[in-house]
């Protein structure tokens, strides 16, 4: 037991040294001015010192100083350097998993400009090396590695769902050829989805399929590796994150597609589009895009026609942190919503400056932090309420889950829908000139 613990600590120490190298300058630059609190949704909801981003950073910095800095080694008290022990790792876990979604908003407003989220992730890497990732999150990573998808859905579940959705699609499109293709080689697009779309929100997948049909797109799903999410990223487990990315890219190669399109998933987009090539240490052989970019292209070029009258209610937009602040996708969804809705209003603040919904960073997988997660959504709830919107669109299934809970908890009375669903509701079919029926909102089929 003691040997095992010593080994874990050694791994954690080695990881701390390696992980902190890239962010060493950020770790060294914090001046602990405390001005970051006002930019953090968790601190704003519960303004206690431990929730200050600087305090969370300090947990990582104190360990880093002890291991990697001159003053930390020789005069640890001067710089509050802390020995890496099981107890200090427990405190670290509470700070970097339980009090931070790594949304990165505080970095924009930090007086120095520290990349706080990357520091938090370095802390998570240390905990992953020590085998101290919270159970729920670790289970999700394990599911993904073992079964190919984070919800551990059996392989035939996708086939069954796709079969009955294809029937729906044929009926809605009045086209006997319409279907949801699986493992069809040589298509233009490999579409990666969130398993949540297969298990709980199949109408999101139907909406995407319906739009692809309207656009005459050549596309396919994969039966083996279709999961756009990457919980290795959240867990700080780079080896798992690399493995999951590699599988998807290999699958794209096996199916011979020309492009990989990612469903509405904030961290999935960030992981696969931006972090993945660096985990793999090579450039991708094919382009990777968010479905929002593709759908925006359909609408802009007139490949898909829409009628905004199908979405008459006021709609506002939640910007997922990983998609917008970390992914650079902020305008396609706005252009889309302006085309497919009658009354689109912005939240304030928005785009890269948005507040996290509270469900990011793997929070939804860590049940022990559920109360904090809901409390931290208070800022988002007030933002939503201030818009007077009846529908909140969000291009992220993870955010959608949190927003559904926020709507109930804070009695917002709003529907949560993905952007794809709102487009599908407004699609004008080429064959008949009539509109499709509206896709069922994500927020209503959750309960």
């Amino acid at each position: 037991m003691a040997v095992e613990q010593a080994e874990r600590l050694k791994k954690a120490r080695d990881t701390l040294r390696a992980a902190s190298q890239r962010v060493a300058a950020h770790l060294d630059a914090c001046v602990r001015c405390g001005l970051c609190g006002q930019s953090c949704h968790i601190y704003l909801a519960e303004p206690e010192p431990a929730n200050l981003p600087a305090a969370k950073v300090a947990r990582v910095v104190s360990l880093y100083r002890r291991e990697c800095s001159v003053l930390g080694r020789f005069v640890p008290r001067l710089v509050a350097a802390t020995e890496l022990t099981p107890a200090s790792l427990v405190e670290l876990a509470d700070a970097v998993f339980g009090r931070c979604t790594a949304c990165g908003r505080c970095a924009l407003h930090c007086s120095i400009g520290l990349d706080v989220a990357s520091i938090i992730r370095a802390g998570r890497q240390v905990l992953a090396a020590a085998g101290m990732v919270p159970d729920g999150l670790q289970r999700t990573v394990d599911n993904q590695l073992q079964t190919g998808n984070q919800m551990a859905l059996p392989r035939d579940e996708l086939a069954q769902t796709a079969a009955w959705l294809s029937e729906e699609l044929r009926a809605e499109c009045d086209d006997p050829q319409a279907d949801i293709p699986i493992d069809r080689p040589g298509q233009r697009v490999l579409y990666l989805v969130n398993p949540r779309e297969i298990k709980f929100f199949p109408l999101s997948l139907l909406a995407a399929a319906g739009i692809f049909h309207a656009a005459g797109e050549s596309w396919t799903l994969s039966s083996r590796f279709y999961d756009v999410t990457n919980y290795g990223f959240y867990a700080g487990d780079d080896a798992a994150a690399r493995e999951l990315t590699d599988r998807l890219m290999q699958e794209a190669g096996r199916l011979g597609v020309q492009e990989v399109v990612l469903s509405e998933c904030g961290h999935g987009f960030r992981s696969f589009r931006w972090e993945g090539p660096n985990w793999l240490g090579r450039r991708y052989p094919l382009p990777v895009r968010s479905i929002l970019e593709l759908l925006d292209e359909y609408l802009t070029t007139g490949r898909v026609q829409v009628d905004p009258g199908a979405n008459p209610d006021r709609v506002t937009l939640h910007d997922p942190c990983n998609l917008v602040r970390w992914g650079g996708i902020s305008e396609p969804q706005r252009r889309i919503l302006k085309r497919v809705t009658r009354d689109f209003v912005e939240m304030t603040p928005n785009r890269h400056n948005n507040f996290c919904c509270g469900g990011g960073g793997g929070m939804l997988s860590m049940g022990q932090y559920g109360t904090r997660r809901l409390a931290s959504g208070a800022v988002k709830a007030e933002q939503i309420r201030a818009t007077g919107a009846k529908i909140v669109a969000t291009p992220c299934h993870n955010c959608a889950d949190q927003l559904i809970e926020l709507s109930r908890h804070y009695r917002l009375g709003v529907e949560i829908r993905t952007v794809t669903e709102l487009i599908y509701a407004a699609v004008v079919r080429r064959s008949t000139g009539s509109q499709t029926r509206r896709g069922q909102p994500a927020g209503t089929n959750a309960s």
Partner: protein
Amino acid sequence: MTTPDLARVFLAASALWVVAAFAVPLVRLGRPLRDYSTPAGSGLSGVIYNLTSALAPTRKESVRKHPLIFCLGLVLHAGVLAAFVGVVILLSNGPAPAYLAAIRPLLLAALFAGVFLLFRRVCSRSLRSLSTVDDYVAIVAVCGFLLAAAVSPHSRAAQTLFAVYSGLLLLYMPLGKLRHAVLFFAVRAEYGWRLGRRGVYPPSRSAKV
């Protein structure tokens, strides 16, 4: 060699130490510039944005919500920068006393700001909980530096004291909190580069902050 000459040599050696000590973290920081993802924007535009417009009160919440702290911080840092220009003049055998005498009002204003910020750190519960001994040492050391700069034009002995004090401060700088004097620019540039490549920076003009 006279005592003032020795003080200047010590100061020059300290300055060299600063350059050497910052080389390692800055080289490490440059590694993310090797990025295999296909860019969607310009890294350079991101760097420029993050070192300019991103600092404006209109963009930065911490400035907007804490205007007094921001102004005091600005005065403190302007004073420290001006005093360091005095150090450079001293090292190059220029008219440091005349220069430091001319900027004395700024130095004293910066000293006042420094004392106020130290007071704030001591009085605020959340700041106290965040603070390390290094935080107090750094602000006290900087206040001492400003005071030494302000009194240095009075006599040769005060000038020598200023040179020695500056040398000691430079020795401490790469080890403790004062590192941020250099790392501020480096981390903003690196973060700006990353977000610039991703097309996040510079942000849309329609973005509401």
